[in-house]
């Protein structure tokens, strides 16, 4: 085992752990939220990465996150086609289709709702923990 093996980590299901601003039941209804990187997985990590596996089974996905704000920037990345989402930025609401990226600068209130479709969302926060 080398000194850098600690930098390679396997993801795990966040399951019922708390996530501030978020409803675990709403998140779970869409699909598993998988932790890919945080400072507990890698000591010193200054990025927090979740991958949410999403499948909207009803007419419209649930509300699962309150309008909130971070002190660092964030990005929602939807790598593949197949999802339609609604994002609130400040007092503005937008609907967009994947693939797409939403960049959220520090201090900007935001929210996200998955309207329909199936795919993954990569959520990146520019610090080592979500908050």
């Amino acid at each position, binding site marked *: 085992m080398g000194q850098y093996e600690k930098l390679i980590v396997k993801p795990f299901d966040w399951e019922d752990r708390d996530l501030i601003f978020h409803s675990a039941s709403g998140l779970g209804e869409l699909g598993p939220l998988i932790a890919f990187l945080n400072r507990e997985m890698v000591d010193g990590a200054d990025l927090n990465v979740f991958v949410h596996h999403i499948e909207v089974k009803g007419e419209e996905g649930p509300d699962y996150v309150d309008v909130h704000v971070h002190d660092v*920037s964030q990005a929602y990345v939807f790598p593949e086609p197949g999802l339609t989402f609604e994002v609130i930025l400040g007092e503005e609401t937008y609907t967009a289709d994947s693939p797409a990226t939403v960049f959220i600068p520090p201090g900007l209130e935001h929210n996200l709702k998955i309207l329909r479709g199936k795919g993954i969302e990569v959520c990146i926060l520019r610090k080592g923990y979500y908050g």
Partner: protein
Amino acid sequence: MGSYDKYIVKPFDWAERPLIHHDREVMNGLGPLMAFLNTDMVDEADLNIFIHHIDVENPPGPDYVGIHAHDVSQAYVFPLPGIKFEVTLGDETHVVDSPATVFIPPRLKHTVKIIEGSGIEVSIVRNEKYEQSLAEDAGE
């Protein structure tokens, strides 16, 4: 059109554009490299995000990136199963199956090679433009 629609961007194929230390022709042979976020797409962005769509037709995949380092941290995220990759960190080489994350602290020399499989790799550099993050005395 509101004040914030500039923050919602569509990815585009990096195509033949250069990427320092990377052999773009060989890289494109694995599949398209898509730019998802940089300062050309969003002026204020302090994250650089690429997604490489990968399909290794003749394993093992080719070498396409030289050893290099950045002044800031980086993460390789392989979100889905289906890819085996080799990552060099300092003088250590590790072979890993996706899903997995590799976190690369600032100034740690590194490279990656896809050995087999198909899927996507998300590269996140904690800075603005990729080239601006490169450490001056690292590399060849």
